[in-house]
């Protein structure tokens, strides 16, 4: 474990050095990150500006949901998503071998190689707006609730990571579908809407989406309604199960990796 932490610290330092070497690229990435951050708020603002209530959620609560999403997805993009994009290309072009030969766990090196510091702005944007809304609406948030919120956001990130990794692992069999990572970016966007939206509309199909719907809805519910619900237990259970499945599935999939590109 200590060895992996040391390796990760070196990788983080290398990413920072790359960032300082290519400053224009960094500014560009910040522009992109800010654009998507602003988009998620602006699109929600457009949707809620004509409504007073959606599945029991008020416009302010939905905006709080977007703040939570912004923090969660900011952390996720900082740590993982660049690596998933790279993983798709590596599998598509048959270049995974170099990673498999390293004296490191392949899931670790594929998931955490690059740190995308530009996405930190999304965390700041989300946290800033969350703080502003909580202050403005005089919402009492005790320290325990706030701590629980951040713990559940971390659990949500673990669940989201596991889902991405399971889907990305499918590329071992279908390398041409490398654009599935783009689809994952889109699917991740659905977590910023109230979970009840999918529950009411999708019927049995909802059960496929249930883990996704819990990712940010649950921490935000804790924040605004202060209830420790069954959803919290379900979120933790899903996160652990999906993480174990992602590891087992990856080890199974590697048996079918041919080293040839698509």
């Amino acid at each position: 474990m200590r060895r992996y932490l040391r390796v990760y610290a070196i990788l983080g330092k290398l990413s920072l050095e790359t960032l300082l070497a290519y400053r224009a690229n960094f500014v560009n990435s910040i522009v992109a990150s800010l654009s998507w951050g602003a988009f998620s708020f602006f699109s929600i603002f457009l949707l809620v500006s004509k409504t007073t209530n959606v599945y029991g959620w008020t416009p302010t609560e939905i905006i709080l949901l977007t703040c939570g999403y912004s923090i969660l997805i900011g952390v996720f993009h900082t740590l993982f998503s660049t690596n998933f994009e790279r993983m798709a290309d590596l599998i598509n072009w048959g270049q995974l071998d170099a990673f498999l030969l390293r004296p490191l766990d392949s899931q670790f090196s594929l998931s955490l190689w690059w740190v995308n510091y530009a996405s930190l702005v999304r965390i700041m944007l989300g946290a800033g707006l969350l703080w502003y809304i909580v202050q403005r609406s005089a919402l009492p948030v005790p320290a325990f609730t706030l701590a629980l919120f951040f713990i559940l956001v971390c659990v949500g990130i673990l669940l989201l990571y596991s889902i991405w990794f399971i889907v990305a692992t499918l590329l071992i069999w279908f390398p041409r579908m490398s654009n599935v990572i783009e689809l994952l970016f889109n699917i991740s966007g659905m977590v910023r809407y109230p979970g009840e939206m999918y529950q009411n509309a999708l019927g049995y199909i909802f059960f496929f989406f249930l883990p996704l719907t819990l990712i940010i809805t649950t921490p935000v519910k804790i924040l605004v309604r202060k209830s420790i619900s069954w959803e919290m237990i379900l979120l933790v259970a899903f996160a652990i199960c999906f993480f174990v499945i992602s590891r087992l599935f990856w080890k199974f999939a590697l048996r079918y990796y041919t080293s040839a590109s698509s």
Partner: protein
Amino acid sequence: MRYVRIFFIFFQDAFVNRSTSFVWFLLALFNPLIALLFWRGAFQSGGAALIGWSYQMIASYYLLLVVANTLLMPHIEMEIARRDIQMGMLSNYLTRPFPYLLLKLFSELPWRIIQTFFAVSVLLFITIGLRVNVHIAQDPFLLVFTLVIAAAAHLVAFMFKMVLGLSALWVTDFGGLSEFADVVIIIFAGFVVPLALFPQWLRPIAEASPFAYMIYYPLVSLLGQISIAGMIRVLAGEIIWFSVLFVLYRVMWTSGIKKFTGIGQ
């Protein structure tokens, strides 16, 4: 005739990669369906106040948006920026006896057709299989005029994406610019909500932007929400935006090609 052959060669390529097309189609399908679910909840709880827009009209808008997106919105900018300019592949096109612009147009069309096939299949399943009533204009003349507007919309979107792609001749990292453009298109082309539901201060800007002419206007024409006079105005707007973008493309091409080294970036 040679462009027909070029089209079929590119069609074979796109058809071989139909699984890639299917994933792109899913991307086009996903967001409108989520927006539709959102409005469903808003209407059910009686919390939506949309002047002139019934739930059926909103549902039709988002379902037809899937088809409009797959058919009208090209995605050539990444290929132009990354493959042609940053990896230096543009050199291959410069030696060929075809204009780069037309080659790109014909290489992109098969992808639009295959993705639209998936979108229309899903739309037919929803309308016939699930018996969801999709509202479209009834007058055949309006429908024919909508086709003309849609064709012009594709050309406006195509020219915009060509200009966007060529900007890689001046910037080393195209990603930020491309993603910023994506965000602007998603908002101002009417992917989030119809432009008619925008706040009053933003609506005139959105309606005058070239992005509205790419998706929103063809869509509301198909829904029968624009009169003949309005459609003529839309067509005139499309011609103006196409001309502006075409001139911009020519200027960028002429000056940018002098900067192009052929060895990548």
